[in-house]
């Protein structure tokens, strides 16, 4: 074959033109803003040399070339393809801000749709790296349809393959629904933002001055809106974390999650667990201390850490196998459940259920957050989401009650009657309709009113209540929990329980889908 022949000449010319498009000067446009180029992100994400790009040389739909500036650019602003991440097949698309601002046009959207369809066919995860100015104005309705097609694909794949989204630049208007619909959203601090309506329109309509950062920066979405689950200070750390995160997840909803090598450094029995819950029931502790002692060393990957911190969610490993953890956090709002934490927990549980990830619940919840705010904003509905999510989940579900488990919150947090598989309790557990103060005030109202020393009497009654009603041994003896365990053997117990549950299968009711409160 003659490499200098006409056919090859065209081939090589095209390659050269592509190289020119992606010149260092082009890269500098991103670098000068502290951002990586789309290509660099792909290269960081995928194992060396494993990325195969498709549709590299597509050009924009006709309209762009006719109306507006003539730009014979390749790729139409997005790089799509597949490759291996730590040895496993993953599909990805990475929007290229240097090409027409990464705006989404017909061809751009088609490329993404193509890769989404492939991912679904192959049963492999898909990662979207967003860095785009939004819909391409010149292409009008074609851009909007393009978005719709992408969203439709996400929804079709939802719960079948893991879909992760990384926001590495602007994502405005319609574009934000991709992250909203994906399973988990990673966001880079200070150089990315998401909002439905941008600061310009806000200024116009409401006459309110607000910066992009304040309206929809990473801080906002990580802490306040809960749209972003993981926030990082720079792009490289984001991508490295993404790779670590992916290693917890299966490739699709039929497979089990991958198994990591366990270095065996976490002892199955650890007496330190006995010291964590303070003797004083009103004193707080950090539930992450408990988590870190029972899972494989350093294997806890927290999700949505800054949002609703009163409920901790995240993935971890037990003897190398992935589990999802949902835990009340006593040191924030005493671990009560509220609207934000209910929705956070519900979504996490449903993801685990979709992808065969067993769930461990660590419970220490005094109830739901009282108050007009919560009631008027619908804590009833939102709390019900958590209830629904747990009940519906057919993955192995284990609960360990560490301390308080009162009333409705006890029911909601994966109680046995909701279909929880195993329920353990520590000796410090208090399981009751309501806390001792409230209960005593109601049951002994008359006695307390008539008493000469109500404070003393109350103290006595509270102690009696704790001993007689709220202690876990009663629940144990009645069969509502399976066993009161020594905190030191918690890890050993849950590993053995999950092992027993590894073939758990529950037939889901034959219906289109339930009517989950939303």
């Amino acid at each position, binding site marked *: 074959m003659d490499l200098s022949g006409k056919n090859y000449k065209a081939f090589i010319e095209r390659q050269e033109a592509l190289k020119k498009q992606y010149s260092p000067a082009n890269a500098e446009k991103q670098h000068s803003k502290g951002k990586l180029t789309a290509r660099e992100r792909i290269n960081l994400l995928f194992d060396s040399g494993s990325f195969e790009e498709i549709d590299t040389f597509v050009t924009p739909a006709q309209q762009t070339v006719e109306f507006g500036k003539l730009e014979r650019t390749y790729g139409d602003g997005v790089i799509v393809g597949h490759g291996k991440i730590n040895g*496993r097949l993953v599909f990805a698309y990475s929007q290229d801000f240097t090409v027409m601002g990464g705006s989404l046009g017909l061809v751009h959207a088609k490329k993404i749709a193509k890769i989404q369809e492939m991912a679904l066919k192959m049963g492999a995860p898909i990662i979207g790296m967003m860095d785009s100015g939004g819909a391409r104005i010149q292409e009008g309705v074609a851009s909007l349809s393009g978005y719709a097609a992408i969203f439709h694909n996400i929804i079709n794949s939802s719960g079948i393959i893991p879909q992760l989204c990384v926001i590495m630049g602007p994502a405005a208007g319609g574009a934000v629904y991709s992250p909203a619909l994906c399973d988990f959203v990673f966001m880079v601090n200070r150089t990315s933002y998401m909002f439905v309506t941008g600061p310009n329109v806000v200024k116009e309509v409401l006459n309110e001055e607000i910066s992009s950062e304040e309206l929809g920066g990473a801080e906002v979405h990580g802490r306040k809106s809960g749209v972003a689950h993981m926030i990082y200070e720079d792009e490289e*750390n984001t991508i490295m974390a993404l790779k670590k995160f992916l290693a917890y997840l299966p490739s699709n909803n039929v497979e089990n999650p991958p198994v*990591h090598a366990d270095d065996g450094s976490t002892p199955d029995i650890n007496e330190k667990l006995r010291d964590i819950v303070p003797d004083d029931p009103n004193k707080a502790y950090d539930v992450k201390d408990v988590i870190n002692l029972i899972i494989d060393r350093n294997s806890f990957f927290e999700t949505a850490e800054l949002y609703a911190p009163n409920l901790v969610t995240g993935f971890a490993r037990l003897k190398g196998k992935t589990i999802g953890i949902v835990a009340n956090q006593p040191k924030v709002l005493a671990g009560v459940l509220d609207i934000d934490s209910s929705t956070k927990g519900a979504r996490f549980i449903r993801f685990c259920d979709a992808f065969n990830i067993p769930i461990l619940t660590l419970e220490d919840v005094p109830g739901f957050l009282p108050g007009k705010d919560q009631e008027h904003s619908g804590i009833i509905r939102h709390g019900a989401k958590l209830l629904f999510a747990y009940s519906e989940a057919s993955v192995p579900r284990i609960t360990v009650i560490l301390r308080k488990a009162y009333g409705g919150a006890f029911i909601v947090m994966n109680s046995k009657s909701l279909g929880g598989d195993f329920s353990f309790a520590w000796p410090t557990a208090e399981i009751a309709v309501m806390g001792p103060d409230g209960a005593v005030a109601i049951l002994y109202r008359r006695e307390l009113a008539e008493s000469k020393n109500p404070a003393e009497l109350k103290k006595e009654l509270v102690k009696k209540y704790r001993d007689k009603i709220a202690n876990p041994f009663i629940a144990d003896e009645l069969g509502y929990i399976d066993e009161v365990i020594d905190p030191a053997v918690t890890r050993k117990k849950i590993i053995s329980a999950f092992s027993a549950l590894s*073939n758990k299968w529950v037939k889901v009711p034959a219906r289109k889908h339930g009517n989950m409160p939303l």
Partner: protein
Amino acid sequence: MKIKRLLIANRGEIAVRIISTAREMKIETVVVRNANEPDAMYVSLADIVFDNTEDPEEIPVFLNIGRLIEIAIETKCDAVHPGYGFLAENAYFAQKCIENKIIFIGPSPDAIYKMGNKTIARELAMKQGIPMATGSRGNIGNEEEAAAAAELIGYPVIIKAASGGGGRGMRIVRKPEELEKMFLIASKEAEKAFNDPSVFIEKYIENPKHIEFQILGDTKGNIVHLGERECSIQRKHQKLLEEAPSSALDDDLRELMGSMAVRMARAVGYYSAGTVEFLLDSDRNFYFMEMNTRIQVEHPVTEMITGIDLIEQQIRVASGEALAFRQKDVRIKGWSIECRINAEDVQAGFAPDPGKIEKLVLPSDPYVRTDTGVRAGSAIVSSYDSMIAKLIITGTDRKDAIRKCKLALDKVWIKGVKTTLPFFRMLVRNPVFIDGTFTTAFIEKQLDKYYLNSEYEEMLAAWLATRLFVDENLRRDSISIDYENGKEMSPWLLNKRINQF
């Protein structure tokens, strides 16, 4: 009367110290175990442990006179050693011991009372012709009296609490405009700290050295001094490092100041161990400050250069024995430096850093003595002081002592809490410290940094951080996933999953 059993009304390193000497003297020791530190080292070393962990301790047990007396009686102790701090200088406690036929290891209640009240002590000193900073006669009742006294004495002045020290109730006033405000602040603080708002005013001596003399006396009227200690290395009135002797004193000055110290002690018929504190200005003028009627934290440096066990002497004196030596027999040999290693964060302004001591390895060289009340596994709790250990180094002369200090400090290994070690490592290399000309203003005013920055130590720390980052993120095998394993599942399950939809 021979002491056979001794109650130690204290904890931490001094309790361990007292147990050590008592053991050699074949005296049984009784200690009090409390809920704050039930597993403390001193508890496991004593002969008899009185378990006070059930006591709700509205008053901390070591401040609870009634309780301590009860314990002493119940455990049939002949004597009580109060250590330092807590009730060591509480005349009422000493009195109560005596009333209950328990020997109090310390001076008479009367001496404690008189020297404890700064105004009375000053009066006595004045009567004895002991040099002191001019000050108000008696306590100051109100702002007018304060202003008048200050005028007479001449600014700058210092307002001091009559009933206590340690920096509380103490205010320096340089300008007349500030006097009224400072007077009120000082009185309030004194009331809060010592239950007595009384203050007096003294001339403030700028940047002096703090020199104190160790006194030892018996009940037969023999009182000697055992040389001085140099305690100018202080921060916020807390001593950090002490030496014996002081490079500021020659034999003549030592003899003069020593004799003044003894005179002061004699004025209250003192017996047992005590310390007379002086300020020494740059012109070699010395001024009596106060007398501490107890054994002090820094007593070891005196012990190292005189060869005398002060705790032993205290016990002997309390038993009625006469001192076995006279002033002319006291010889000083060598030089001793004590570093107080505390659980404090030098980088955060010496803020206490309570926590658990995970590892503790102390040097065991012949020139190092370590007095400690903790071991690996001990907790440093915020209810007590943050002392970990006293590192006492003895050399042939000051230069030798400093040299050995450097070596010893590098051999101390403590993990689990932050310590003041970086401060001492810096101090023993500081030129002002080395030439000995430092004053009490040195630490607070002449040092801008309390630790040394070693470039290569920082580089090692940076290397470690980088190593961790690389291991967590960049190594190919940091994520060793077995993808095939996830695919192996029982046919039972696989079948169900596939056919579910």
